[in-house]
């Protein structure tokens, strides 16, 4: 009954209008590189002080749902992930675009986001206590195992240049060590240069690696006045056959996203890469990944939108945010005078129900707007090269600058752009670099925290079934990747040409 009350609340005219506005705003902000859902919600927070608690939350949840999805649009069309969570989407989304199947990729991304969002809502509504009980089993050793499991994707996204992929991954890990070491709160590898103290933040690094390097590549290909990069984007509305083919990818990635979302130490960025990795690992055609396969778009998109429902689980049940966005939402609840956590269900069931309902309705809004708006937005990508290249350049630089109004961030984007271009020319894949920047600090910090905890005893990583399971799957996928590589090279040349 309570849930119906929530639905009625959401369908009140002013709430519905705010929800739709929130979703649209979220999609726009998400699609613009550099502006994330976290930022959008933080900015909007002061305006919601004066609103009623449930109305404020309905709108904020709309932004959350839209913002996570929005990043995929530019990731697919321009290889410029709007949010770091969409970086994995561009791995297959952009190649699809280049093949003239951008519309198909957008349609899949939209429906995957919708599916992921709804699955996670179902978990949120029915299995919250169960999931949060499982989430608190995660401590440093388990987080380390999860990060390692995620990092093994390097072996699967590297294609035929396995060794180069591993090197690229290591470059990413090294990049990660520059800046401020949070465990001892001391600068590392900054060589006394103050601007290096911020390290290489994820957002400008991703923008540089993917968007700016692509820009340089487009330049290199030569520009003539009537050149368009893509002929068309094709139909957006996904085909039933595609959706049917992807049903297990949808389901599995949604589960991965929901669960990773529920962990306070990991969010949408990590979820999308882990889902991509898992999808490729279990695929019958792993060799097609990275060349433009719809599975590779569906998996990260279902997962990163499933994070929305997942991240709300610990927020509502434990008062602990599951990711950066829910941390801000938690602030919003507190400002409204509500105490998130175990007592919220008892004291304010109305709020809980309106959160549930707005998440579900918000996903429907996102689906419709996504499918209709995508057609209009997609037209951008069929512009002339001479128009498009400056646009990408401006977008990228604004994106790098926007979050902190920082010139240092722009410089970082440029450095990563040039570095990424050079590496790509030398056949180094860029995905492993992005991946190790996303996962590196989680891996390192949880590794060190675990060893501090155990006073240096390595066996801590094998104390719980969770970490053993993750590490075993990780070891297994490395083993199979190496074996396949060995077999392939033996067949082709008879030598071990990594």
């Amino acid at each position, binding site marked *: 009954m309570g849930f119906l009350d929530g639905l009625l609340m959401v369908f009140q005219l002013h709430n519905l209008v705010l929800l739709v506005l929130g979703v649209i705003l979220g999609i726009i902000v998400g699609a613009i590189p550099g502006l994330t859902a976290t930022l959008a919600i933080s900015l909007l927070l002061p305006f919601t002080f004066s609103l009623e608690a449930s109305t404020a939350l309905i709108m904020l949840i709309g932004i959350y749902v839209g913002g996570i999805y929005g990043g995929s649009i530019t990731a697919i069309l321009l290889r410029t992930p709007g949010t770091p969570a969409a970086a994995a989407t561009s791995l297959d989304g952009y190649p699809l675009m280049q093949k003239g199947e951008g519309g198909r990729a957008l349609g899949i991304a939209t429906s995957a986001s919708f599916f992921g969002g709804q699955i996670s809502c179902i978990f949120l509504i029915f299995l919250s206590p169960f999931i949060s009980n499982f*989430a608190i089993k995660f401590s440093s050793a388990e987080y380390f195992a999860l990060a390692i499991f995620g990092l093994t994707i390097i072996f699967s996204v590297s294609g035929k240049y396995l060794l180069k992929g591993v090197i690229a991954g290591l470059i990413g890990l090294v990049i990660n060590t520059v800046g401020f070491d949070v465990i001892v709160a001391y600068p590392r590898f900054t060589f006394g240069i103050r601007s290096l*103290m911020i390290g290489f933040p994820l957002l400008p690094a991703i923008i540089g690696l993917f968007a700016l390097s692509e820009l340089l590549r487009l330049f290199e290909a030569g520009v003539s006045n009537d050149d368009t990069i893509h002929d068309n984007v094709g139909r957006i509305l996904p085909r039933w056959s595609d959706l049917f083919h992807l049903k297990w990818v949808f389901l599995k990635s949604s589960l991965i996203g929901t669960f990773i979302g529920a962990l*306070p*130490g990991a969010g949408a960025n990590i979820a999308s890469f882990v889902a991509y990795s898992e999808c490729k690992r279990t695929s019958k055609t792993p060799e097609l990944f990275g060349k433009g396969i719809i599975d590779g778009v569906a998996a990260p998109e279902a997962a990163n939108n499933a994070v929305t429902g997942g991240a709300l689980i610990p927020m509502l049940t*434990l008062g602990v945010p599951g990711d950066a966005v829910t*941390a801000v939402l938690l602030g919003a609840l*507190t400002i409204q005078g509500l105490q998130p956590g175990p007592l919220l269900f008892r004291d304010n069931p109305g709020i809980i129900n309106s959160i549930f309902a707005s998440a579900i309705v918000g996903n429907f809004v996102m689906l419709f707007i996504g499918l209709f708006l995508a057609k209009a937005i997609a037209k951008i990508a069929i512009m002339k090269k001479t128009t498009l290249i400056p646009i990408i350049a401006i977008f990228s630089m*604004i994106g790098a600058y926007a979050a902190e109004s920082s010139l240092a961030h722009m410089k970082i984007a440029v450095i990563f752009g040039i570095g990424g271009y050079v590496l790509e020319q030398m056949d180094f894949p860029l995905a492993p670099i992005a991946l190790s920047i996303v996962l590196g600090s989680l891996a390192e910090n949880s590794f060190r925290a675990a060893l501090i*905890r155990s006073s240096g005893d390595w066996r801590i990583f094998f104390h719980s079934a969770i970490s053993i399971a993750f590490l075993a799957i990780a070891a297994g996928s490395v083993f199979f990747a190496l074996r396949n590589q060995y077999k392939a090279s033996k067949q082709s040349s008879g030598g071990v040409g990594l």
Partner: protein
Amino acid sequence: MRKEFIKILTVSMIILLCFSLAGCGQSPSSSQGAASGSKEAVNPGNSGAEPAQTPALDYPKGSITAICPWTAGGSSDITFRSYLSYVSKEIGTDINVLNVTGGDGSIGVNQALGMPADGYTMAMLNYDILSNEIKGITEDSYKDFAIINLFTLQGVNLVVNSESGWETFEDFRQAALAAKAAGKTLQIGVNGFWLHAAGMMADAAGIKDCVVFVPSNGSSELMTELLGKHCDAVTTSLTVALPHLESGAMKILGTMAEERMPEFPDIPTFKEMGYPNVIIAGFRILAVHKDTPPEIVAYLREAGKKAFDNPEFQKWAGDAKADPVYMDAEETVKYLENLSPTVKQTMSNLGLI
């Protein structure tokens, strides 16, 4: 040709939108201020106080930028923005918050000092202003600022899982000593400067060798660490722990504040328990560059006080458990002068310097 033109137009509109959003990135309170500003135009005394304008002072002429050295949306950021919105009402101009993060707050502080000392750049100073200087990460010090005032002071508590069976801090201390005798350690989850609080407490109680301090990625992670019994205790503020204290899942063994907390009058302070030096708190201070003209500083101090006393701010801060505490510039400097050697001693005990 025409079609192409329309496309370009569309895209430039999008970019324009993007610019305006980026602009919002620095100025959420600006638009909010604008909204309330228009209200003020109709009814200048709507906050109950006439703007504290003295006729001689030609300030502020435009909007003010306030640097928050922490990420947007964190508790420091939210509290800072909220307080500034009331300061903004007092001085009748917009205050735009700019988040400049990194280097444990030192980057933002440094950027604030690099701006002209004309009163148009404010900064928030936190505990790290002391520890970063002591560590030698930066040469910037609170002495480079003219303090406007301190507006929150958040005590640190030792929190344990209720299932631990510990009722008092003495129980915890005995358990730690027993663990040591058995060749084990107790684990205290820490995050940021709460490490100093935990170190200070362990040192004073003589259990430094019986505990390890496990770092965590954030205060919320500390809660799951404790709920999942991965840690024996955590040091944290009241804000994050409150729901679990109310539900009975967690328990405070002692607070490192000067006096007992109004919310939990039964919880003793460490001072009462015989550890008079275990007093530590996170603070938030509003400041401007020390070379700012004294009449502007005086004007801002008056506005800062009025903003703090604004019942709306008091209500907000109470609801948000932001621990509002006011100290004027003199008291704040004295407070920091007293705290500084303690911080240094704690850090040296922890082996951080």
